[in-house]
């Protein structure tokens, strides 16, 4: 027993001696370490992986990627391992990585830690820990316009009456990010089809093809005629294609798999943020505590419109709305466009500084609209507006 341990320890010691000189080189150059929850087989992570390669190649910096890192102690260990390997920016892509990134950030004040989708940077007060997100609700609103025009087309063709203009939406959890997403989609649709209503069902997972497919069946049986979702699998799209129900997708195109029903998809483009953080470190500038990409900075993109499924005039309507957004004339969460319990909102305290009781702490309504993703990058819109029915709230 003793002998074995001493052998193992000796090997370990020798290895450290050999490894030490290799670690010391190249301290000044920028090197980025990426931590991904899954590998490129997940559409969510693939979106990050592609952006990471694009950004690092554009900036001409070295990078390392660690895929399949779970949301646990391994995230901290991986982050520290990347620091040991000489990385001076660490980026992690999944919400659950956040506490481990913060733990690592506290131990390595000289390394910048950037975390996508997190909520705690603005309350942790660490100089080297940052959150980033994109105003994806802008993209979803545009997707909603495409869905609304489709409803109008169905009404004109006499396939449904104006009262039957019902949308369906499959969400993961009753989490602010999801609620902000489906509400903006709905508001986009209602901006062109005033009689639109919506039903939402939740799958309880960010990736569960079966549950998402079952959600689609439930919505179709309930009479929803256009469907969208906030989840990462092809479960719902393939079901919609089978029932010939048009849908708006998220994070990637489904044009190949669903040529007849797929209309358009919105996605977050992470390359602008990744390039930004690399530039900041190169120039010795501080990275923002919270960074929100917008449709103007090309952080929010729409995929190519599928003319087979989209209603005529969709492309022009989306372009016009996008131009108005970029010009600042169109606000997605305009308080004149929605009511809560029959009343227009003048004031709302949102839970921006996350605490366990989810108490509201920040006034987010001013100048006639809900200021989403301004007080922190991650969404905090969690209002339940009129016209949307939640079918289940187990998650």
């Amino acid at each position: 027993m003793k002998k074995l341990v001493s052998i193992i320890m000796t090997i370990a010691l020798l290895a450290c001696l050999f490894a030490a000189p290799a670690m010391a080189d190249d301290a000044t150059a920028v090197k980025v370490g990426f931590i991904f929850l899954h590998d490129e087989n997940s559409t969510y992570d693939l979106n990050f992986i592609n952006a990471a390669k694009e950004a690092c190649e554009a900036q001409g910096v070295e990078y390392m990627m660690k895929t399949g890192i779970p949301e646990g102690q391994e995230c901290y260990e991986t982050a520290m391992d990347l620091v040991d390997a000489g990385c001076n920016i660490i980026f992690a892509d999944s919400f659950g990585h956040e506490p481990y990134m913060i733990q690592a950030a506290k131990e390595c004040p000289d390394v910048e830690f950037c975390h996508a989708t997190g909520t705690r940077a603005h309350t942790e007060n660490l100089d080297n820990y940052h959150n980033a997100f994109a105003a994806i609700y802008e993209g979803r609103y545009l997707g909603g316009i495409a869905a609304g025009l489709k409803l109008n087309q169905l009404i004109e063709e006499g396939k449904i009456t104006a009262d039957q203009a019902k949308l369906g939406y499959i969400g993961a959890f009753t989490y602010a990010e999801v609620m902000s997403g489906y509400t903006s989609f709905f508001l986009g649709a209602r901006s062109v089809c005033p009689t639109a209503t919506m039903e939402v069902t939740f799958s309880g997972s960010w990736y569960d093809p079966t549950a998402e497919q079952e959600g689609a069946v439930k919505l179709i049986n309930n009479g929803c005629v256009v469907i969208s979702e906030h989840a990462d699998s092809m479960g719902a799209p393939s079901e919609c294609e089978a029932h010939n129900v048009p849908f708006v997708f998220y994070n990637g195109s489904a044009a190949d798999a669903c040529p007849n029903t797929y209309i358009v998809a919105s996605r977050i483009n992470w390359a602008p943020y990744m390039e930004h953080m690399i530039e900041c470190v190169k120039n010795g500038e501080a990275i923002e505590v919270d960074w929100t990409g917008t449709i103007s900075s090309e952080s929010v993109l729409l995929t190519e419109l599928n003319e087979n499924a989209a209603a005529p005039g969709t492309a022009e309507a989306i372009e016009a709305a996008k131009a108005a957004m970029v010009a600042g004339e169109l606000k997605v969460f305009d308080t004149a466009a929605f009511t809560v319990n029959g009343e227009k909102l003048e004031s709302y305290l949102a839970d921006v500084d996350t605490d366990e009781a989810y108490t509201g702490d920040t006034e987010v309504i001013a100048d006639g609209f809900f200021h989403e993703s301004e007080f922190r990058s991650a969404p905090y819109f969690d209002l339940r507006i009129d016209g949307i029915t939640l079918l289940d709230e187990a998650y």
Partner: protein
Amino acid sequence: MAKRNQEPLVHITKRGTLPWFVSWGIRACTIVLAMVFCGIITILVTGENPMNIYATIFNGSFGTPRRVWVLLQNIAILLCVSLAVTPAFRMRFWNIGGEGQMLAGCLASAACMICLRNIMPNWAVITCMVVSSLLAGAVWGGIPALFKAKWNTNETLFTLMMNYIATQLVAYFIIIWEVPKGSGAIGIINQSSQIGWLPMIGSYKYLLNVIIVAVLTVLMYIYLNYSKHGYEISVVGESERTARYVGIKVDRVIIRTMLLSGALCGLAGVLLVGGTDHTMTTTITGGRGFTAVMVSWLAKFNPIWMILTSFLLVFLQRGAGEISTQFGLNQSFSDILTGIILFFIIGCEFFITYKINFRHVGRKGGVPHV
């Protein structure tokens, strides 16, 4: 003429016991062979120099002092679960529920950390964590044992199914304790107050776990080889009838041993949740409950040899992960390499236990030459 030669082309016979250095020599050769084979596969896929690949595998575990600690920590947890399932295996009780028993321990620990943090001092929370996790593991292991002892149910299926129940229970409580709501994750429990975190020895995060498991290894060795309980376990394992004949209460031994087995899995749960991870997820055990079966088996249920076999498995796993990162391959590739290596290792056990005899060429004509 056809009748004259009935001997098949190959046949397999059981070997006598080999001297330890021969059997371990065979095992060492197998690992070398497995490495060569993995090298060939990697070269075919990536075109890299094999020496780089082996250096990368080595680096994955020993590249930096931190990696050495991570290696030791992983060995400690895997070894702890392996030690836990070993008494049951010696009794020929196939406990493949280490995963579930460990999760039960994790759940109990996390529950104490979350529910007791505001009403008890830190030392009391830790005491509750240890006691409740050991109990939770013991109950999770005890239920299948009770059914086996009373109604002779199949313990393999029973313990396996208990794993799924534990996983779903953990999933249920994650939804209750998730922060923030709807995120599906608990995050680090008590990150600022550190209540319920096992104490660090000096500045070494993982040292306490390593020491606890090292002591446990020695104790388990003594328990299995030099105690009355250990002897009873061996007798029950060899033959239940013999055990009954000599007056051993078989039911009692089965239940007692599984309570111990489950409790030690629960201990692994505390070490994970309280000692290092400070969180709970449905995948926190990382399949160690199943890997432990292999560790225990490869070491012939000998706790001391298990240090080596658990080291080997963790070393290969971390090395394979490092290959994926260095050569830009995804995680599946490291799974392929680990699979190949395990295939070789398990295969070699066959050649240690059995001998393959080929039909003697000289006997073909019936008259031996020379």
